[in-house]
C-alpha cells in the first residue's frame, strides 16, 4: 500500500497516519544545524513534524496533474488532522524565536544587507497573506525568496520543508502540502 501513491479518502489517510505514527521507527536525523541549544531544539521539533510526514507515501513522478494535485490536498488534510491542536509558537518557541531573530536581523543589518534586502524585494514578496498555523499557502501566490546568505546561517531543513518570508513574518512552510507549519510574526523589521 505504501509502495506508491494511491489517492485515498481523507479518513483513510487519517487512519493510516495514526497507525504509522504509533508504529513509527526512530526518525531520521535532520540535516546538521548551526550549533546552539535553541537550534538543536528547533531541529528536534522539525524531526517530530517529519515523523508525521514520514507516515505518508512519497510522491512519484507522473504525467497526471490530477494525481499531483490530489496528493497535495490529501497530504495537507492529513497533516491538519494530525496537528489539529497546533498553534503559533509550537515549533518557533520563544527561545527558538530569539535565536532566529538574532540571525535574521543580523543578516539584514550586516555588511551584505543591501544585497539581502534586494533579493527579498526581487523575489516578489507576498505582503497580504493572513497567516495561520495549518493554514494554506495559496497556490496562486509566488514562493518568496529567502536570501541564500540567510539560509546558510539557519538550521538546514529537509527537502519537504522550507523557510519563507511573508511580509514581515518568517514562515516555516510544508512546501509539498503548501501549508503553514509555524511562523514568527514581525521577524523582519
Amino acid at each position, binding site marked *: 500500500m505504501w509502495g506508491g501513491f494511491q489517492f485515498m479518502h481523507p479518513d483513510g489517510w487519517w487512519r493510516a497516519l495514526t497507525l504509522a505514527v504509533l508504529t513509527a521507527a526512530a526518525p531520521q536525523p535532520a*540535516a546538521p544545524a548551526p550549533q546552539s541549544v535553541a537550534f538543536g531544539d528547533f531541529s528536534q521539533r522539525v524531526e517530530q513534524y517529519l515523523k508525521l510526514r514520514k507516515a505518508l507515501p512519497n*510522491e*512519484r*513522478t*507522473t*504525467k*497526471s*496533474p*490530477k494525481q*499531483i*494535485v490530489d*496528493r*497535495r490536498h490529501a497530504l495537507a488534510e492529513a497533516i491538519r488532522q494530525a496537528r489539529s491542536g497546533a498553534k503559533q509558537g509550537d515549533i518557533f518557541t520563544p527561545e527558538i524565536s530569539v535565536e532566529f531573530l538574532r540571525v535574521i536581523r543580523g543578516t539584514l543589518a550586516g555588511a*551584505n544587507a543591501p*544585497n*539581502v534586502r*534586494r*533579493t527579498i524585494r*526581487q*523575489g*516578489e514578496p507576498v505582503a497580504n497573506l493572513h497567516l495561520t498555523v495549518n493554514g494554506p499557502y495559496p*497556490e*496562486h501566490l*509566488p*514562493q*518568496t*525568496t*529567502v*536570501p*541564500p*546568505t540567510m*539560509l*546558510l546561517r539557519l538550521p*538546514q*531543513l529537509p*527537502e519537504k520543508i*522550507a523557510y519563507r518570508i511573508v511580509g514581515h513574518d518568517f514562515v516555516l512552510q510544508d*512546501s*509539498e502540502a*503548501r501549508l503553514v507549519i509555524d511562523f514568527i510574526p514581525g521577524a523582519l523589521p
Partner: protein
Amino acid sequence: MRPTRRLLLFLVLLSSQTLWLRAQDITLPLKSGSVRFAAIGDMGNGEPAQYEIAQRMLEFRQKFSFNFVIMLGDNIYGGKSPAELQKKFELPYKPLLDAGVQFYASLGNHDDTNERFYKFFNMNGERYHSFKKGNVHFFAIDSTYLDPKQLAWLEKELASSGSDWKFAYFHHPLYSSGGRHGSDTALRDQLEPLFLKYGVDVVLAGHEHFYERLKPQKGIHYFISGGAGKLRKGDVGGEFTEKAFDTGFHFMIFELLDDRLHFQVITDQGKTVDSGIIERRKVDTKAAPSVPAAPPAKPVPPTTRCSDK
C-alpha cells in the same frame, strides 16, 4: 474541382507558405550532429501569447529540428489545478510533445515545488537537477531556494562534469538591466564563484519579462529570456546590456557544434531580433579560480532590425 475544395486547397497552400516564410529567418549552421535546443521563460499563463510562441516554435522546428526545450521558470503561473496545468502547458505545447520534444524545467518563484513530480518537466522529482546532451552538461538550479545542500550538490556536479560545455539555467538573473527586478546580487555572491571555478560557459535566466543578452561578465555569457508568455515593455537597458528586446514576446534557439554555440532569438511574429556565435573558452578547472577574458558574442546580422537599448 468544387469551389469549396478549391478554397480549402488555397487555404492549405497559403498556410504552408506562411509557415515557410516565417521559418526563413533561420541563420544557424544547421549541421548534422549538432546539439539543438530551444529556451523559454516565464511562459505558463495560458494566455494567447504563450500559444503564439508555442506555434512559432513548432513552425521553426520544421527547419531547425530541436529535440528538447529548457524552461527558465514560472512554468505555471497562478492556479495549479489539473485544468490549469493543461491550459498552461499541455495544450500549448501539445504538438511539440506529440513530436517527441522533451522539456527540462527549472522552477521559478511562481511555480509549485510539486511540479518536480510532473513527468513532462523531466525533473525526476528533484528541485534541482542536471543532465547531459552530447558534449553539453546542463545544470537546472532552483534559485528561489538556494540552500547549502543545493550549493554542495552544484559544486559536486560541476567538479565531476567532464563535458566540454557547461550551461547553468535558473529563474532569477545574476545580472540584469531590468528596472523592475535587476541583478540578484545575493544569489550572484553564491553562484558566480562556482561558475568561475568550474568553467560554466553560458547562464540563462528568466524572471524579467524581456530578452537581454548581457556583456560577458568575468568571461561568462549571460542571457535573460523571460518573454515566452509575459512581457514588460520599456523595462530593459543599462550598463550590462549588449542587446535587448522588450517590445514583443520571444523564444530562443541554440545550436552547438564543437566549440561554437550559435543562438537566435525569435519573436511571436517569427522575426529574428538577435543572433550570434559564442566561442567556447578553455578553463583549467584544476587551477585556482580564474577569470579568462571572453570575447563578446560575434553578432550575426539579424534579418530584421532589433531594438538596441
